[in-house]
Every structure is written in C-alpha cells, then in structure tokens.
C-alpha cells in the first residue's frame, strides 16, 4: 500500500462513488448536498505537475457530471479549484509551501481547516453559479454555496482525519 499511484487511483474511485451514490442523494432540507470529492484535488501531491492535476480534476468533474446529468458544472468547478490551488496553499500554509515540504498528515489542523474552507468556497461558488445560471438569482446561489460549504467542510475534515495514517 505504499505505491502513490495505487493510493491515488483508489482515492479517485472511492471518492467518485461516495459522491454519486451517497452524497448526491442526501438532499438535506431539500437541497443541501456535500461535495467531498474535492478532497482528491486538495490532497493531490504537491510536487507533481500542475498540468496533470488540471487534467485529472477535469476528468473527475466530468465523470460526476455524467452521473448526475448536470452538463459540465462539476468539471468547471473542479478545474477552477485545481487551478487556484497554489494560491490557497500559499495563504494557508505559508512558509511550508515555499519549501515544498507540506505533508498533509503532519500539518496543523488549523491551517488544514483554512485550506479546505477556501477550497470549498471557490469550488461551490463556481458550481452553483453555473448550475443556477442566472444573475438575478444570486441570493439563491449564495445561500446554496454557504450551506453546502458548511456540510462539505465538516465532512471533508472528518474524512481526512479518519483516514490519515499518522495519529495526531
């Protein structure tokens, strides 16, 4: 289980299935769903090529779109998140990122929460803007973004903490 390629493929498939089978049909209060598949994009190895990350994010988003009949909204949101990831890393981890030495298992939980929060905000804002697709309903977009964000952040942190191999 130390082959990074294997770990990431496994993570890709399990997060995809978790998303389409369970999370897409939660519909808490009628419309609130978490989108924990962003964990894959957030925790992708930093030293790897950014082009690879962009392409894989696009494929992940597209697959979720195919499953949920939503055109290309997830793909667009995933690609935006993947593109803005270096900025998020810099703001939330600071010096660690400069030295290219972040280990997600070992970082402080505080910076991890900042990182996930910012990532979820960007992803959900793009996602719901495109899904609703009308400026006149900006309140609806913001409402959906806010509530789904809370749900996603809590679920993502739980998943990351549960599955991290190093005990904090």
């Amino acid at each position, binding site marked *: 289980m130390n082959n990074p390629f294997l770990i990431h493929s496994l993570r890709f498939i399990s997060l995809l*299935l978790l998303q*389409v*089978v369970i999370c*897409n*049909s939660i*519909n808490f209060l*009628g*419309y*609130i*769903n978490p989108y924990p598949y962003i964990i894959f994009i957030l925790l992708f190895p930093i030293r790897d090529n*950014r*082009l690879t990350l*962009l*392409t894989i994010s*696009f494929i992940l*988003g*597209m697959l979720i*779109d*195919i*499953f*949920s*009949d*939503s*055109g*290309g*909204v997830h*793909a*667009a949101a995933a*690609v*935006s998140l*993947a*593109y803005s990831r270096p900025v998020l890393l810099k703001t939330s981890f600071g010096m660690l990122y400069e030295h290219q030495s972040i280990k997600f298992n070992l970082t402080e939980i505080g910076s991890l929460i900042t990182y996930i929060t910012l990532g979820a905000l960007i992803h959900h804002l793009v996602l719901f803007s*495109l*899904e*609703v*697709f009308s400026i006149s309903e900006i309140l609806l977009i913001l409402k959906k973004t806010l509530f789904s964000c809370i749900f996603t952040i809590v679920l993502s942190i739980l998943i990351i903490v549960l599955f991290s191999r190093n005990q904090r």
Partner: protein
Amino acid sequence: MQQIFNFVIKNKTFLLFLFLFGISLAFTIQSHSYHRSKFISSANGITGGVYGMVNSVDKYFGLEIENSKLAEENKRLRQLLLNLQINADSSFLQNKENNNLNYVVRTAEVFKNSYASPNNYLTINKGEKDSIYEDFGVITPKGIVGIIDNTSNNYSRVISILNKKSRINAKLKNSNHIGSLEWNGKSPEFSQLTDVSKFADVKIGDTIETGGESAIFPKGIGIGTIESFQVDITGDTYNIEIRLFNDMTNVGTVYVIENKDRKEILELENSDE
C-alpha cells in the same frame, strides 16, 4: 514564432485551464438548451450499471411504501372495473377484435432521481431494447413524472417536470382552458401553470390534468391541485401555483406510455407548414 512558443510554454497551465474550463462551460450551456444535452447523460451502460447496483439494495427499504401504493392503485382500478358499463354494441366488439390499442403502457424502475438542482433528471432501467424511445410520457399511479429525453440500449433518461426546461401541456379539469406546465426551480412540491386565459374560472383546490394536445400524454392524467393563483403582469393570463399529486422526491416504479398515434398526429400537424 519563437515568442509565440515561449508564450505558450510559459503560460501552459493557464492555457490548459482556460481550455478545460471552456469545454465544461460549453457542456453546461448546451445542457441548458432542450434536446441538445445528449452527450453528457446518465443513460449509458456504466452509470446505469452503478445505479442499478445501488438500487438493488436500496429498493428493499421502500418495499412497504411501494406495496401500499400498489394496493391503492389496485383498489382504484378494481373500482373502475366494477363500475364499468360495457356497451355491447357492434363497434365495441369490432374494436376489441382488432385489438387496436392507442396507448401502450410499460413499467420501469427508477434507478436515479434528483430534485435538488434546477434541472432534474431521472434514470430508468428500460431502454431501446424494451422499445422505449424519445418523447414517451412517464407517469406514476398518482400523476405525471416527465418525458423520456434520451435512451440507450438498457436505460433511459427522463426529463422530470421538476426541470426548468420542461414544458408540458396541461388544462383545468372542469373547463377546457389550457396552459403550460413549468417549474421555477424552487420547491419540489409545487409546479407552475402559466398562460391560462383570464376567462378561465380558476378556483383554489381545483384539479389540473394533462391536456392531451401534445400527443405525448393521454388526456386526463392528474398533475395536481391549485394552491394559489395571480394575474400575470400583462393582465391577460393567470399564473397558477400547483401542488403536485406526486411526491417527486419518492418515485419508485413508473409507467412509460407510448402513444401509437403520435407519428400520425405529428405528420398531420406538420403537413400544412
């Protein structure tokens, strides 16, 4: 030339981002126009298979509700049967011998249902193999669900009435005033009927049913009851809020309706254009 290459290499991440974002945006825009969202659809073997596996577990949790729904429908049909007055005149007999059914009904199971996004679709487990094609109507015992919009060999996608693109012809039950059934994307309990003439006698609590003009649904399938209504800004038409009969958040088994005369009706309607 050298400079162009340098530019591309320097900005390759940004260019790839723009390219991929553009593709996703194109798919999104395409999915917002009716009948063009064919490419990205859950009616294919892989997604259908996954949803099928989930459904085979999931359906055991809803068996009790499904049973009571069936019993309810059986009761209603039995009531109709007992009260049916059979006219034993010649035309009826002839009809029976010819077996000329106008509508063919097939059952299907819902594999995937959504109601939280502005454009909702259902995936059902029958497709072209079971002679289900585009533009067939989909109903439950209680009321309408939607229209088949995309089919593969084993699966079909249904464009739900809870979809901003969906337009279905509907009418008031106690008069013949017609309107167009739409959804504003807000609550899965309510749907909106627009373009109802202001001469119509609209009362709260009245029933709305399908109009039978579209050649997709037969006339008289229930949709819902009037919850509230108001005159449109132009003052000529009513906008009616309808409480749906169907609980769209819980759809298990559906009936797919094929209108055998549809082709003929369409040919007739298009002949004078």
